């Protein structure tokens, strides 16, 4: 790779053919590696969902600003490119499974083949079916009823499909990585057995010890990147579902799917802190468990920063009136990193109080983390509320903080703590 990089910048024209050939060879090499790696398909599914869900967030802001007239807007393009990537990832996952599986006979009915799929693949398949069917469903809905709101049957199918796919992809990455490590360990033990028979001077106890050490150091080791790639799309899509249930953007010419304002505020107050705490705490737990390390700083922070960047790009930068509030929004990084430091320094299986404090802190920041869209949700329950125009969003938000936040901080803290308990339980049960 480095040799190819350097040769690109040499002026010798006789090397140009060599550069192109070696680059193509490199790309083919990576392509072959990717096809053999069971995780590749799941990564594509996660990345595709991430693109779709982020574009969906952009689309909400686009609608607020520009009331787009056309189906073919840039955010819609992002959504459907993301769906295409998810589809290609799912095809890769399923085709590799059917090619390599020794359990399934060619005579099995295709229904049996689907039923026998491992859980991650089932979830990805179900999610993809929903995603793909959401497209024509959405087009038909637009054709029949004109512009639809945020909450509509077709949008619900799309978002639930994305959530299911992304959960399947994360589980698939985790389980594929375990399978691969087990295969690697089996191969290593076979090599050790061979060396025992040929090198009788080695003592059997030292070989057993070294084999056990390999198990402890390499099994269940998941790349931190995979945890982030797998978990962020889940966060974005589930947040999208909560937005659909709480934002007042669903009153259209034919249907009014706007949620009751009080119910919407309750949903937002309980669900957003839960998902923030669950996702961030789970990212920490997964990184600790995968490395068999007691504490693991960084993954929680990076996961939070990725979410902040996505929201910044899709909901804040797109509205010129909100650009001056970027420094305020970036301050969200501070409690996230603080919690990461707290957990990585102090968290142990016995010191649950540390986990609860972490859950409380990250649950309580949901109101700033979900700025600016959350303004619309809580504005509906304020007396004498004014229309949340794009140019007034930040001023309305900052005025409502002292009225709204004292009422919701305690439920946010409680649900943040509950989320850490549930996350710990789920991840412990899986292991």
């Amino acid at each position, binding site marked *: 790779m480095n040799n190819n990089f350097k040769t690109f910048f040499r002026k010798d024209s006789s090397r140009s053919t060599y550069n192109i050939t070696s680059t193509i060879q490199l790309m083919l090499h990576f392509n072959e590696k990717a096809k053999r790696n069971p995780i590749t398909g799941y990564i594509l599914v996660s990345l595709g969902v991430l693109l779709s869900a982020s574009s969906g967030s952009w689309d909400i802001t686009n609608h607020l*600003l520009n*009331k787009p*007239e056309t189906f073919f807007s840039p955010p819609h393009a992002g959504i459907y490119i993301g769906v295409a990537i998810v589809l290609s990832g799912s095809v890769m996952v399923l085709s590799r499974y059917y090619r390599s599986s020794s359990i399934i006979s060619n005579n099995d009915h295709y229904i049996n083949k689907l039923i026998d799929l491992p859980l991650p693949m089932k979830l990805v398949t179900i999610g993809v079916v929903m995603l793909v069917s959401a497209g024509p469903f959405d087009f038909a809905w637009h054709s029949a009823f004109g512009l639809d709101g945020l909450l509509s049957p077709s949008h619900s199918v799309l978002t639930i499909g994305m959530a299911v796919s992304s959960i399947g992809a994360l589980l698939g990455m985790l389980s594929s990585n375990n399978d691969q490590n087990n295969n690697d360990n089996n191969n290593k033990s076979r090599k050790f057995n061979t060396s025992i028979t040929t090198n009788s001077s080695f003592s059997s106890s030292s070989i057993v010890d070294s084999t056990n050490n390999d198990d402890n150091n390499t099994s269940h080791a998941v790349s931190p990147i995979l945890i982030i790639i797998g978990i962020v799309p889940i966060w974005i899509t589930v947040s999208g579902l909560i937005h659909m249930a709480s934002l007042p953007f669903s009153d259209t010419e034919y249907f009014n799917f706007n949620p009751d304002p009080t119910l919407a505020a309750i949903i937002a107050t309980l669900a957003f802190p839960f998902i923030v705490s669950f996702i961030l705490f789970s990212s920490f737990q997964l990184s600790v468990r995968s490395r068999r390390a007691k504490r693991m700083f960084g993954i929680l922070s990076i996961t939070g920063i990725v979410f902040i960047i996505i929201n910044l790009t899709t909901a804040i930068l797109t509205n010129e009136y909100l650009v001056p509030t970027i420094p305020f929004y970036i301050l969200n990084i501070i409690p996230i990193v603080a919690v990461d430091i707290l957990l990585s320094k102090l968290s142990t299986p016995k010191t649950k109080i540390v986990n609860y404090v972490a859950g409380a802190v990250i649950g309580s920041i949901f109101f700033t983390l979900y700025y600016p869209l959350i303004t619309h949700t809580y504005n509906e329950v304020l007396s004498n509320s004014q*229309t949340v*125009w*794009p*140019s007034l969003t930040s001023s309305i938000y900052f005025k409502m903080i002292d009225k709204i936040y004292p009422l919701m901080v305690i439920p946010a803290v409680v649900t943040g703590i509950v989320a850490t308990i549930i996350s710990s339980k789920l991840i412990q049960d899986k292991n």
Partner: protein
Amino acid sequence: MSKPFLSKAVPVITNVTMSALEVRLGKSFNIFVTSTNQGDTADIQIVSISFPNLTRIGNGNIITIKNRNFTQEPEFIEIGDDIGSKYSGLSEITTAKYPFIEFFSRPWKTDTIYQSEIEIKPPVVGKFMIFIKAVSLPYNNEFSHYPHTGIKDHQEEFVDTYYVNVKN
């Protein structure tokens, strides 16, 4: 942190041109309206053209939009539709007493010009009235609407008045 910026748009109808001030019954005339924003970018700015003499405009026989360059599709409001009033957007609702067309852009940037041309075939003899106004939202002060004075329409908002004599 610095005080959040509050947009103050200033809508202005800069030109209204009528192709004729007198027409025979059964003949049409054109009205050409030019408007701009002389303040900050408006989240939304509306040019409203009302027809107090008409009972409806939706069938396309009387009113035809010949040209427009607004960023959004115009809205056609008929008698009985719920509409906003007193420059409040939809915070204070009233009922339309005559039909009108709303041309709007969203957003409407500073010094950007938008125009519309409408062909009108009056159905009856007499003085055919047209009300024209512009409003920017969010509404901030008396400069968020145009004109600033004059008669008020069914939305209790100021309008400029134009008319064409229709004869046999």
